[in-house]
């Protein structure tokens, strides 16, 4: 099953490159999304592996499911978004090809069972997604693409330094397969583990968008077309997070979890603070969403650093963030297409002009900011509960304070945009169905998860969090 999803782009790319038809591009993207969902379903049921290097386990299947859901929505939305943009057929075909490879390389990251192979796929995601950011060929998107490739490549190089340092310490194991590392965790020299973990954390943290190495993220998310922003925020950051988790597990098994937790905690809190400051300052709604992604990655790291039930909460938060942010970015794309500006000040009265997108805008805001019945409420509640149980009152205090600031900052902007009198020159028109159905799907799914967590999901998350501490 795994070869199908990894090799589909290789087979499809020459085909669409030579035909160069917008319809075909669209169809291929949707076929790949459907294929991805089907294969993920089968892998969930039966598990699977392709060579010893790629394999499913309870941890990565969660991430694979989120990715395929998000990709499915984005694939349907994609065509409608580009109807408003004047992009040549050649550029659009290249865009589709890079999009396919980008998704495949993310699947590769998730399925890797070997630390260095995972590195290869993570670097590949950078290379394939950089052209996606530059698809609109503007000066600012060029600048964003440059920063993205450069900062992420440096970060990833540092992660590779970390991997080499780690392999010095694993002389007794002489293998970088996760399962070998885990079963021999106790024999790895702690000095090298401690030496390598900051490198790997900084490197993968760059991709995940943790402060202080988040500099590329707001630029890339705001300049890329909305379907790409949704994929970057909803799936790419998760993939990098899975990488950190795999190494974090090694640290836990080696008995160095206090050290690893402290570093994660520092980066998590810093991300929260940085995003709070910039959410208040920015006047660009796509940048605002990007900073919100940094915030949520901060919450997720905070959850992992806290441990206990917060592991479960972190996974739940990953899911709810992906669904909410996917919906948020796609709706932001609709607003951009309608108002032709990214400035918060200039957008007024979305509800008057376009009821559906107005409500989606508010709904996505509710979903991202942890208002019941959305699942981010549960996850954030569980994380704070665990913080209180561990008597971490100061951290919980900072978390609350920063969270309130962010809620205020985002709420102010979102409400400003949604309500108020609209510009009378803008015509009312109902949007094309495919520009809002994916978001409705994402938000409904989030509500279902929030109101009653289905047993399947519950078990999945429990297995995943159990796997974090088990030697498997």
């Amino acid at each position: 099953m795994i070869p199908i999803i990894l090799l589909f782009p290789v087979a499809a790319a020459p085909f669409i490159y030579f035909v160069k038809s917008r319809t075909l591009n669209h169809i291929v993207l949707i076929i790949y999304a459907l294929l991805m969902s089907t294969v993920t379903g089968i892998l969930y049921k039966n598990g699977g592996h392709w060579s010893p290097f790629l394999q499913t386990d309870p941890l990565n299947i969660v991430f694979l499911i989120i990715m395929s859901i998000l990709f499915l929505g984005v694939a349907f939305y994609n065509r409608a978004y580009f109807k408003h943009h004047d992009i040549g057929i050649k550029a659009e075909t290249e865009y589709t090809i890079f999009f396919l490879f980008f998704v495949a390389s993310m699947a590769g990251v998730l399925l890797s069972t070997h630390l260095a192979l995972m590195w290869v796929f993570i670097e590949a995601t950078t290379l394939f997604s950089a052209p996606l950011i530059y698809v609109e060929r503007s000066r600012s998107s060029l600048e964003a693409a440059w920063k993205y490739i450069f900062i992420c490549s440096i970060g990833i190089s540092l992660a590779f330094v970390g991997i080499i340092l780690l392999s010095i310490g694993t002389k007794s194991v002489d293998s970088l397969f996760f399962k070998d590392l885990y079963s021999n965790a106790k024999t790895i020299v702690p000095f090298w583990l401690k030496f390598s973990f900051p490198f790997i954390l900084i490197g993968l943290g760059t991709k995940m968008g943790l402060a202080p190495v988040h500099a590329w993220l707001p630029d890339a998310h705001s300049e890329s077309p909305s379907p790409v922003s949704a994929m970057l925020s909803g799936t790419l950051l998760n993939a990098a997070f899975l990488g950190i988790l795999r190494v974090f597990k090694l640290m836990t098994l080696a008995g160095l979890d206090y050290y690893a937790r402290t570093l994660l905690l520092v980066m998590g809190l810093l991300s929260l603070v940085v995003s709070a400051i910039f959410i208040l300052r920015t006047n660009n709604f796509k940048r605002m969403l990007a900073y919100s992604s940094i915030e949520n990655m901060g919450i997720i790291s905070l959850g992992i650093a806290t441990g206990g039930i917060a592991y479960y909460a972190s996974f739940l938060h990953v899911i709810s963030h992906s669904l909410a942010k996917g919906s948020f970015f796609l709706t932001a794309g609709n607003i951009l297409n309608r108002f032709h500006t990214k400035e918060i000040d200039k957008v007024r009265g979305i509800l008057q002009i376009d009821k559906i997108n107005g409500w989606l805008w508010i709904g996505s805001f509710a979903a991202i900011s942890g208002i019941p019945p959305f699942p981010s409420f549960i996850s954030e509640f569980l994380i704070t509960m665990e913080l209180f149980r561990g008597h971490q009152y100061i951290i919980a205090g900072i978390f609350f304070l920063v969270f309130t600031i962010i809620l205020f900052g985002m709420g102010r902007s979102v409400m400003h945009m949604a309500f108020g009198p609209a510009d009378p020159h803008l015509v009312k028109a109902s949007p094309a169905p495919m520009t809002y159905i994916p978001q409705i799907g994402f938000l409904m799914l989030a509500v279902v998860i929030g109101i009653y967590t289905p047993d399947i999901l519950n078990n999945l998350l429990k297995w995943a969090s159990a796997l974090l501490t088990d030697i498997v």
Partner: protein
Amino acid sequence: MIQFLVVLFAVTLLYVSITGRIETYIKLLFLQGLFIFLVVTIESPVLNSLNYIFLMVETLGFKTIIIPLILVKAVRKMGVRREVEPYILNFNSLLITTLIMICSFILAFMSLKYAPQIKPVHFAVSISAVLTGLFIIMSRKKIITHIVGFIIMENGIFLLSLSIAGEMPLVVNLGVLLDIFIGIFLLVMVLKRIHSTFDEIHIDKLTHLTD
């Protein structure tokens, strides 16, 4: 002999920090590639044949010939003015690079206690190459020098991976090579695009995106 080559590699790092011309930068990259190639050749009996061929291709083909060639072409095509234009004085630059080296050597001899199998000179020089690369990126204005800094970092990482005896599976090695190569290629492509769009390749001009 290997020690000698590694020390020569270290000298190129010092030279990078004081030179002011882009052509010299690229020549130094060529020299670094050559030194790494020689190190690999002399050490080769340890490796099996497939990995050996792979390393030859990577060091001689990519690091020594193709990458400097791509950069030379890019520089000629864009007609970049020659000066590197650092933010700080050359002397201070040299001072910092020397400091980086001293720290790396101290670190290397400290870590020797925990892993007797590493070669301390290799280890120290490669760590200082990674850090010097980072320093070059931070202290220079022109984008092309940033790419050079990045390649110096990658050379350092390659040398570091040679300083440990363990081998990666071939799949992984190939993947790493391909990634780095495409990465550098892509960076040069974007550089050209930036040059034609902004008419300028200073990072000072890349400040459109802020809050």
